[in-house]
């Protein structure tokens, strides 16, 4: 069992309180950072550690910090805890069980980036996580870790927990800022990038919850220590969220570069496929990343190898599907998500995801036409690279990859006029419920 970093003491009782966290060495890193380091030293340290963002894009964290525009405007830090990527559930666990680790990471990062106000944007649906983070913040204020002149260092900081209210797009960094500023969560034009003009027009750092929770360990044990984990280009460990058709789904921290197979089959991880069935497909980084075939099961989970295999490491959400899975139905389910979560700002994503779901729906329910498969691909081509933000592209990745891998399955649906996996004909469901309460009487 490899050494753990982020989830080391995660199941220790009372860890979610400040005393509990202190008993496990909590806030030592903060003291060390404030006493022994100048802000810029910390930026260098994180650069050296090789830490890359855990939110999806995998951008080198230290480098992102060093891009902050140098001007007299107030700087801000946004912690992206809007975790909504289907198949991802690590940030919620961190917030519910070890909120102080996140808060400590936020404080150190704010010091390193000379930030005076930090916001933790917690997904609205995660009510408990929100309360846990809020309480941790209050405890940290009381303990003098947040507020004026922290630990006598002269560094002052305010931290605010801001609750989302149900919008996946607000996980996109610029939409998150719009939302924080009290607007509809539309992504912003880039450039300018947040590091130049971000929240309230100030230079802004945005990092994922897990990314920030990793900072204390790096500060405590040093960049070189952290860099000993993982691979050449993908350093450290990260939390892989294993879900779907495995015996023991859950969050498993492992070094980058661990093969997919290990996480699915190893006893200390997924423990094998449910009912020992055949592996059919894997989504390695959350529903926004392309589907991989079973043949890719030995691919190491690092940014480069997964890219080479034709997908992305994304948010670390590994979704496992076994032989009984109807790929079309699964893809339909994922596409419905993007249709419902499209912000509606740009035409291709708003109209395209709607059209795609309609077609997938009719294929799955046996009313598909021969031309539909190619039509799907062409609609995807008119969305990806044309939409305003990456959500549009994300909506197409499961379709494009599944047609590539399982075209015959699509054609079987059309040919047989039914879903080969469903023994009895299933009823069509009405619109997703959240939406219909949403839509109101208008």
């Amino acid at each position, binding site marked *: 069992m490899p050494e753990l970093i982020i989830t080391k003491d995660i199941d220790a009782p009372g860890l979610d309180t400040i005393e509990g966290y202190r008993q496990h060495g909590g806030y030592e890193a903060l003291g060390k950072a404030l006493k022994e380091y100048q802000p810029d030293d910390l930026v260098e340290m994180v650069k050296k550690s090789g830490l890359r963002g855990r939110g999806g894009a995998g951008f080198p964290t230290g480098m992102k910090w060093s891009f902050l525009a140098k001007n007299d405007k107030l700087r801000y830090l946004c912690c992206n805890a809007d975790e909504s990527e289907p198949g991802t559930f690590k940030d919620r666990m961190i917030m519910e069980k070890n909120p102080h680790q996140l808060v400590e990471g936020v404080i150190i990062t704010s010091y390193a980036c000379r930030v005076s106000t930090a916001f933790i944007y917690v997904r609205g649906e995660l009510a408990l996580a929100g309360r846990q983070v809020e309480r941790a913040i209050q405890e940290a204020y009381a303990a003098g870790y947040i507020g004026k002149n922290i630990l006598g260092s002269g560094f002052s900081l305010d931290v605010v927990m801001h609750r989302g*209210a149900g919008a996946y797009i607000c996980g996109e960094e610029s939409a998150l800022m719009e939302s924080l500023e009290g607007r509809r969560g539309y992504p912003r034009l880039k450039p300018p990038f947040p590091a130049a003009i971000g929240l309230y027009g100030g230079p802004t750092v945005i990092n994922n919850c897990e990314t920030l929770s990793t900072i204390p360990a790096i500060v405590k044990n040093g960049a070189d220590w952290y860099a000993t984990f993982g691979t050449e280009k993908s350093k450290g460990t990260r939390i892989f969220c294993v*879900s779907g058709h495995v015996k023991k789904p859950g969050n498993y921290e492992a070094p980058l570069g661990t093969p997919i197979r290990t996480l699915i089959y190893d006893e200390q991880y997924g423990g094998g496929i449910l009912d020992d069935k055949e592996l059919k497909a894997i989504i390695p980084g959350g529903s926004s990343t392309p589907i991989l075939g079973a043949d890719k099961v030995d691919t190491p989970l690092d940014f480069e190898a997964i890219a080479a295999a034709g997908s992305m490491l994304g948010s670390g959400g590994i979704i496992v599907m076994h032989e009984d899975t109807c790929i079309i139905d699964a893809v339909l389910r994922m596409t419905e998500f993007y249709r419902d979560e499209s912000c509606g700002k740009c035409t291709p994503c708003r109209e395209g995801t709607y059209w795609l779901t309609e077609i997938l729906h009719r294929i799955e329910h046996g009313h598909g036409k021969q031309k539909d498969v190619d039509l799907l691909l062409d609609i995807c081509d008119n969305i990806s690279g044309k939409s305003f933000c990456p959500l549009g592209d994300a909506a197409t990745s499961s379709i494009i990859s599944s047609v590539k891998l399982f075209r015959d399955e699509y054609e079987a649906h059309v040919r047989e006029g039914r879903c080969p996996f469903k023994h009895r004909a299933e009823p069509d469901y009405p619109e997703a419920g959240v939406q219909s309460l949403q839509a109101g009487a208008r």
Partner: protein
Amino acid sequence: MISEQAKQRMRDLASRYPVARSAVMPALYIAQQEEGYITHDALQAVAEAIGLTVDDVESIATFYTMYYQQPPGKKVIKVCTSISCYLRNCDALVQHLEKRLGISRGETTADGNYTLMTAECLASCGTAPVLQINDEFVEHVTLEMADALVDEWDRELKGLGTQSIAPDTQRVSSTRAQ
């Protein structure tokens, strides 16, 4: 009617952020807590507290799915139906609850007790299938569990009639991690 204290809380929030507008989402939550959903009074109160037009507030309230546009039941059940829960057969759970409550997804029972909704991935894929009852998680839900839960809620509802939308139970999730 939005209480004076609620309006005061909204105003305080407005002054807590660098820009008053930032308080609009928390303010909408406060209004929803009082009214149960986003009523005309709710829009009005938020608009006044933050200094926006009611149309502006409506525009924001309808972008985010957690602000209800219609009165929900006393117990709002949200079953996750995204991919990972789908693979763990959440659809059967939804159908089961539909039968048990005698409503389809998106509807509220005639007695105003239950609203059944489906939700996007609730970040609980490791413990699928999962549901939320008034925003609190119940994980690894089996059909038997679902019945037991409804029985429990029925008893509770008989006991205390109307009660607020978000009870403050502190249940830490059982999300496994090694």
